[in-house]
């Protein structure tokens, strides 16, 4: 559905996007992940025919963005970073205007506007001036605008920015719902968002694609082995932590053992495994074999956040130290996203 080959985009001497290639199959949700200034927005602007590529080909539904931009525009719904809203228009009037310039047939216009408003939960403000709407509503009107003409491809630049936690969850649900009938690319710097909404991730940094894979594979690939957290109790006398560590390290497949916490008479260890080892059964057997009590064992998966930092940092640490600032910023944003989750569930 989306086919990007060797795309480069230069502004004067500055290369914003450098020779990136990726493909998106119909109906998939792809997350575009990268630090600020990585080239996410530029790439999206090329996909929507807002900017022409400097080099390379971009095809959407088989149509080239340079040769047949009209065909591409008909098939793409786009939500830019700042929703393109006219503050002096009412929500409904604005959507009707968008429908008209997006070639929605007159007979269907009312129906489409109604549906888009319903889908994005803006029915209650349909008559309000956009200038008077809160940031969350504006974002959703922007989303309604993007999917109004029922495009095959949806391109969403940071669709959840500025929303409160409840709205973020609703928007993510909506996006997941839209996948299947639409092919979706969304950019974000909130990592949990990618983990929760997307099926595939394209991580870009400094204008280059540094990783492309499914969320699952990417996590595993970078992970190599797995890690487990074990909580061990000792019936009678407690051996020293070092003794226990040595024993655990002897378990089949364990490669690195770190004492995490001492809780009363119990010890918490984080055990990492060598790649492709079956760590947990061996660990359990070792513990029980020594006559200790296994209170808890849980698998620690790498979060995409760590993967992201690993990828963006490892790639550039030697060459450009200044860049480290950028991922650090994104870590904050990610942490922020994390914090909002429990609030919602509570």
């Amino acid at each position: 559905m989306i086919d990007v080959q060797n795309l480069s985009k230069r502004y004067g001497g500055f290369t914003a996007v450098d020779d990136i290639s990726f493909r998106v199959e119909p109906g998939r949700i792809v997350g575009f992940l990268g630090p600020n200034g990585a080239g996410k927005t530029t790439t999206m602007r090329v996909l929507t025919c807002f900017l022409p590529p400097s080099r390379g080909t971009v095809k959407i539904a088989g149509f080239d963005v340079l040769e047949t931009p009209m065909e591409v525009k008909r098939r793409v719904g786009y939500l830019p970073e700042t929703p393109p809203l006219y503050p002096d228009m009412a929500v409904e009037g604005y959507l009707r205007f968008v429908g008209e310039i997006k070639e929605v047939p007159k007979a269907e216009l009312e129906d489409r506007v109604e549906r888009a408003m319903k889908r994005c939960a803006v029915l209650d403000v349909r008559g309000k001036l956009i200038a008077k709407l809160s940031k969350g509503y504006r974002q959703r009107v922007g989303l309604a605008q993007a999917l109004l003409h029922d495009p095959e491809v949806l391109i969403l630049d940071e669709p959840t920015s500025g929303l409160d936690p409840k709205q973020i969850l609703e928007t993510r649900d909506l996006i997941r719902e839209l996948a299947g009938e639409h092919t979706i690319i969304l950019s974000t710097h909130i990592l949990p968002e990618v983990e929760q909404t997307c099926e595939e991730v394209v991580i870009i940094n400094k204008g280059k694609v540094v990783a492309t894979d499914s969320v699952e594979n990417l996590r595993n690939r970078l992970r190599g082995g797995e890690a487990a957290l074990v909580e061990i109790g000792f019936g009678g006398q407690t051996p020293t932590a070092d003794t226990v560590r040595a024993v655990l390290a002897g378990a089949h497949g364990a490669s690195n053992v770190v004492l995490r916490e001492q809780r009363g008479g119990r010890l918490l260890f984080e055990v990492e495994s060598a790649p492709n080892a079956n760590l947990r059964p061996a660990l359990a057997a070792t513990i029980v074999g020594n006559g200790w009590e296994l209170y808890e064992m849980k698998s620690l998966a790498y979060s995409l956040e760590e993967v992201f930092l690993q990828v963006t940092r490892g790639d550039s640490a030697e060459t450009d130290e200044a860049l480290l600032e950028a991922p650090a910023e994104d870590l904050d944003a990610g942490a922020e996203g994390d914090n909002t989750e429990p609030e919602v569930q509570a």
Partner: protein
Amino acid sequence: MRNILTLATKELRSFFVSPIAYILIAVFALVFGIFFAVSVENFIRFFLARGQMGGNMPMDHHEMLLRPLLGTISTISLFLIPMITMRLFAEEKRSGTIELLLTSPIHDYEIVLGKWLAAMVLYGSLLVISLFDFAILLFMSTPEWKPILAGYLGLLLQGGAMISLGAFLSSTTRNQIVAVAVTFFASLSLWVAEAVSVFNTAAWARGVGYLSILAHFEPFARGLIQSKDVIFFVTFTFFWLFLTVRSLESLRWRA
């Protein structure tokens, strides 16, 4: 065509939901109203004074009253049009809505023509206000309507030319203040261009003089529709509209 009308309607709406259209109409009505009242009063005084002196030369309504008044409209509009055109593109660029227009299945020229058309309609509604003033004359006399019609044709052509220039200048910036200031300056230059060629007959001076908007309007005010003036305004309009389309395109390349 449907797209052009859609865009023009949207643009016109935003003129009339913001105070700008009303301010322009009010200012125009006031300024032209004052000019009109004063001119008519002067004309009547002159008429009476001449009667007392015993002169019985035929009076030319159009030459003495209507022509200067049409010229006044032309001058006032030079100063009001920058305020009509300033927001056309600058506002869309500033707020990012240009991204919506440029990623929709519409052609750049449709965007430009839609906006030009909307500005023309607003300008036209200013002209309609002045028609009310002229209608008053119908109570006192029977003015020749054909030269007035020619004058209004000239006003429309001149307005179209100025609006296309203003639209272009608005498309080069994201700041409305810059747009209005530069357009205003351009209007002034085109206004004074005529002065250069009055006494200087060198080729360059005549070239500059040719660009004078007012010089090309003058024959219309006299009731004269000359193809060379029509061609000047139409060419001027298309030239700037064309450049506006190119300017929108360049936005994609420079972004």
